[in-house]
């Protein structure tokens, strides 16, 4: 109705934690957050998921590490990161001043490594909102993915981590599996508060002149708008089987994409590749989402979750 003014409630809940809005930024696409402060008011974001942190620092894979593809990009960074000790000493203090909720993404090659990283952070005083566990990185030879493709390993890892934290615990799922819902259920049944889906799809491209792969490690992870339909389908399938919230990831560039993921069953979303093009895009998407819901007279974001009207 023209002239009417409704106050849209964009808040959303994951576990016992409430977030001001459902638009998060995905791990590995926003650094540790403060790198972008000069370009955008990061405190407006629903949450910042920081780059994967491992027990020891990692230098990453040899170049070339990225290549642009139609509607997307392939990366094989190899979890280059500063390691948990420096994350705690140098990065956490800066994050805490930023005013945004942040979620720490953890990667490891053995379950003990995941555990140790989480324990080290739990041992200090921090206002970190929770953890996203990367069991789905396709770009390291050891670990990571082997958890993400096995329901049993996901169950064991989730159970062990759950015992060590009261904070929000999110398992990040891979699309490179036969049945993503089996992995999602394993996470849910062992104490995860939420799952996020999807990580990158295994992708490859070849320079036909040199006949070499465009990525040093041959295969990489495909992200960007090209994978959005796979993300939507994964969220939809998970939402039909799981009772815990799902965070939708994959190719989001607009408020319309956020709504689409939400209709499929997402309670929140993460923006990934689009941050590389415009680090401030998350803020614009939040504003657009608010206007879009206002225009449709929808006063509560959460009322859209899972509302897709299927034909059968």
């Amino acid at each position, binding site marked *: 109705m023209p002239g009417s003014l409704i106050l849209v409630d964009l808040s959303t809940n994951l576990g016992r934690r409430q977030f001001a809005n459902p638009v998060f930024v995905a791990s*590995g*696409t*926003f*650094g540790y957050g403060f*790198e*972008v402060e*000069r*370009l955008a008011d990061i405190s407006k974001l629903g949450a910042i998921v920081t*780059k994967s942190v491992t027990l020891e620092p990692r*230098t*990453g894979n*040899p*170049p*070339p*590490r*990225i*290549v*642009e593809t*139609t*509607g*997307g*990009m392939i*990366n094989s*960074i190899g979890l*280059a990161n500063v390691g948990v000790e420096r994350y705690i000493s140098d990065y956490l203090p800066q994050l805490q001043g930023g005013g945004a909720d942040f979620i720490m993404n953890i990667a490891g090659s053995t379950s003990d490594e995941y555990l140790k990283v989480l324990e080290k952070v739990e041992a200090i005083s921090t206002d970190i909102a929770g953890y996203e566990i990367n069991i789905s990185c396709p770009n390291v030879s050891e670990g990571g993915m082997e958890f993400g493709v096995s329901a049993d390993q996901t169950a064991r890892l989730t159970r062990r981590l759950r015992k060590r934290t009261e904070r929000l615990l999110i398992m990040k799922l891979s699309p490179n599996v036969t049945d993503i819902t089996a992995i999602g259920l394993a996470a849910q049944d062992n104490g995860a508060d939420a799952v996020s889906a999807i990580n990158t799809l295994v992708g490859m491209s070849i320079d036909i002149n040199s006949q070499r792969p465009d990525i040093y490690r041959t295969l990489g992870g495909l992200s*960007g*708008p090209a994978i959005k339909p796979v993300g939507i389908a994964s969220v939809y399938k998970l939402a039909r089987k799981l009772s815990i919230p799902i965070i939708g990831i994959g190719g989001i*560039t607009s408020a319309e994409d956020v709504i689409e993921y939400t209709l499929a069953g997402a309670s929140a979303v993460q923006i990934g*590749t*689009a*941050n*590389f*093009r*415009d*680090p*401030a895009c998350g803020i614009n998407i939040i504003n657009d989402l608010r206007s879009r819901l206002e225009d449709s007279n929808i006063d509560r974001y959460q009322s859209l979750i899972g509302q897709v009207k299927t034909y059968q």
Partner: protein
Amino acid sequence: MKQIDALIVANRQLAHQIWQMELAAPDLADDITGPGQFIEILISASWEKPLRRPMSIAGYTDGKLTIIYKIFGPSSHQLSQRAAGDYLSIMGPLGNTFTINNQLFPILIGGGVGLAPVWWLHRKLEAAGTAHALILGARSGEEHFIESQPDKNILLTTDDGSAGIAGTVLVPLPAILANNPNSMVFSCGPEPMLRAIQEFTADKQLPAQLSVESYMACGLGICQGCAIKTDGARNKPFSLVCTDGPVFDAGELDFG
């Protein structure tokens, strides 16, 4: 460093497949530090090609920023079709700069699409009245947009001998060095050229700074995509072109 929509003031062809664009970017003035710095350009609003393109700055005067670019694919072609009066989304300035050593004679070497930062350095040295040499290399004469002026140490080379000196940018170097033994080389260009300059300067024990290019997503050190091998330099096996570079001491780089 800012992200702005910059007004295109001019966009014109300089030589075969070589174009120059001038952008109104007064808001970047405070962050401009010198040749070597680059901007990330969003060529098209379409998501078919999601990433910005890194491009070296070829000049910055009175709030106007210049880029010189070579047409070698659909994106650079698209850029050449943009008209004065349009706006272009740019992010920058990013990266570090060449560092002139006042004790050493600067020899500037640019090749192909990599001539932009070298051109800017040349113009700055020229404006400051600092003696230096400039060597620009191309495949053929039609790609050159200036005339050679040997009396001013401005030398052109072409692979096919159609203009200036026949051969690579290394050909005129010994003669310049004979007159200026205490020199330092500053260069940007295709990797085979940089590799040759690295070998040459190492052999002659000449200090050299090379500006390198890489595939890049964010330009901010976040994506870690523009890593290059730096053979242990700066205490790490890989460095990021965007935040550690794009200018490196020649000895730091490992072209593999």
